[in-house]
């Protein structure tokens, strides 16, 4: 059952003389109880996408087209008050750099009380009890509820932010870079916790990250974003084992792995300026496999196998491209 659908969503930012198309036509279906990962480098629109779902973009941002449907109902057309009722209760967010998202002059318990009394209609007493339960769930001692944010370590603050997102039993959690800037051991704990919560409460998680190894062991589905569009999506195992889009192939080359000895290869060049009109494939300037058509026609995201989507003109040559993509010289051909 799909209960959050994003249909051809476009989120643009109004700049002085131009429009910056941060998210430019994204389709995504999220099923209940699933962990879906969205990966891509900075500036590819992944944070804007989730801000769009929550509708908390920067002031110059607006939804230019498309729709977000929650249980079949459009979240864009619904009234402000109705949307507010859904947010946090049904859809909660763990913000990026959540260690800085707690108010330094309030005790952490106050944040819990505020959310639960204002949104959840609970009394202060109930809220404190619930906060205590959540603290135990995320593995922090209840006694520390009355501490201030600066008394916690980075990993603990991250867990507080997760507990805060959970406090009204949401159905969907959107986690924007939840483990970036954390140590490996804490990162491991946070990921394990997300995994456990999913299996306990049938939680749906949207996990935004730039780190493939973070999604590899937690997610079921993966969407790879590049320059405001999804270039590949499908089952995580399929994508990581046999990527079909050259950008996904490049990304998996660029990662150091403890178990692999391959030489790392970077993707030269940078993301195109999204304020300009895009012609042809957005990845063409960095793609070592481009052919003539790539410069003139933008490839559509097409389902070429059941449940597997990719936006590339040469998607059927994947066997050959995967082989070629392993060579360093192939990627060096593209001038930086």
């Amino acid at each position, binding site marked *: 059952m799909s209960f959050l659908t994003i249909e051809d969503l476009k989120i643009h930012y109004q700049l002085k003389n131009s429009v910056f198309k941060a998210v430019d036509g994204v389709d995504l279906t999220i099923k209940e109880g699933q962990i879906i990962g969205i990966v891509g*480098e*900075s500036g590819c629109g992944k944070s804007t996408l989730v801000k769009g779902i929550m509708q908390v973009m920067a002031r110059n941002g607006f939804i230019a087209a498309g729709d977000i449907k929650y249980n079949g109902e459009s979240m864009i057309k619904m009234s402000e008050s109705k949307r507010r009722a859904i947010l946090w209760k049904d859809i909660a967010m763990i913000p990026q750099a959540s260690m800085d998202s707690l108010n330094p002059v309030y005790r952490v318990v106050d944040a819990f009380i505020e959310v639960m009394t204002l949104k959840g209609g609970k009394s202060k007493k109930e809220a404190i009890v619930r906060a205590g339960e959540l603290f135990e769930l995320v*593995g922090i001692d209840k006694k520390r509820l009355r501490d201030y944010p600066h008394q916690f*370590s*980075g990993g603990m603050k991250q867990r507080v932010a997760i507990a805060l997102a959970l406090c009204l039993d949401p159905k969907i959690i959107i986690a924007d870079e939840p483990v970036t800037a954390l*140590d*490996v*051991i*804490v*990162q*491991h*704990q946070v*990921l*394990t916790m997300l*995994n456990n919560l999913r299996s306990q409460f049938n939680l749906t998680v949207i996990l935004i990250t*730039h*780190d*493939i*190894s*973070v999604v*590899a*062991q*937690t997610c079921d589905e993966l969407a790879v974003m590049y320059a405001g569009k999804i270039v590949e999506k499908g089952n*995580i*195992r399929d994508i*990581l*084992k046999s990527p079909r889009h050259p950008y996904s192939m*490049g*990304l*998996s*080359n*660029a*990662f*150091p*792995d*403890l*178990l692999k000895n391959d*030489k*790392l*290869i*970077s*993707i*030269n060049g*940078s993301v195109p300026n999204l304020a300009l009109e895009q012609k042809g494939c957005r990845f063409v300037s960095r793609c070592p496999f481009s052919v003539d058509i790539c410069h003139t026609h933008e490839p559509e995201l097409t389902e070429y196998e059941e449940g597997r989507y990719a936006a590339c003109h040469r998607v059927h040559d994947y066997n050959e491209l995967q082989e070629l993509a392993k060579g360093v010289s192939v990627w060096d051909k593209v001038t*930086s």
Partner: protein
Amino acid sequence: MGQSDFLIEVEDLKKWFYPKQSLIGRRKAPLRAVDGISFSIKKGTSIGIAGESGCGKTTTGKLLLKLYDATEGSFKFDGVEMNSGMTKQELKDFRRKAQLMFQNPYEALNPRYTIYQSLQEPLIIHKYGTKEVRRKKIINMLEKVRLTPVESYLHKFPHQLSGGQLQRVVLARSLVVDPLFLVADEPVSMLDVSVRAGVLNLMREVTSTMGLTTVYISHDLSLIKYLCEETVIMYLGSIVEKGPTDKILFSPMHPYTMALISAVPSSDPDVELKELNINNSITSADNIPDGCKFQDRCPYAQEICFKQEPLLQKTKNDHFVACHFSEEIGGKQYENRLCSTRSYG
């Protein structure tokens, strides 16, 4: 100069920070950031220092560059003792030979200096040649870090470059004075994934062609594996394990190293996320218990661990470990991460 094989020799080095004392009340215990570490680095090799945040790895890096004066212990650079009795000239000479590469390239460069000015600054400070010679040197250095065509970069400002290019400039600036020794503190953690690999490859190549001795500080073991021949694992200011990188990563002897390794996520979706067998909380460095520092997180801790601190001892193949039970623990068939695969459905 240059009599010994080792560029860096560190013996029982300590750095304690004393908290501000209040007028009344008890003397507070010092924060033992680095608490007696010993290691040496052979000329032209690279060593990685890994550990959690707060384990003292950055402090160690700063001690090696004399940005901090050690509280105790000896630190020899190229066979010469680096103590507080150095003259100004000696110190300046050392500053040229030992360079630091910063973590965040966006903040490491002066935004009002062009790339040329940024690279020229260290050369002026160390009174290197004439203007013409300096210019040649800078162009040569930028070519080495592959910022080509050089002419198009020389007069750009930092905000005009991408993160990967900036980190190349930062690397070039560290190397332009021909140092012998480089400390790189989390060199790529601020960079985008797609360009990380390029910077890492470049560092590997440039340091080996220039014959540099390098220290990489990172919490990312996969990065250390990629760059370093030797690895040092630190925990709360002490070295718990050191040795050749392959030995450390594939046959670790210390329970902390094992936990650290199994916490590293893999990009292989078939590898299962394993439960860690260590306790969550990190002991604070201002309240270190007697005995082994790792005692309260260690799943194998026994009576002796609470009483006596284990010393760093050599096992075999230059592999050192500080654990009372390293033989048994290391001997226990170390569970290879490859063995457990993730189940779907």
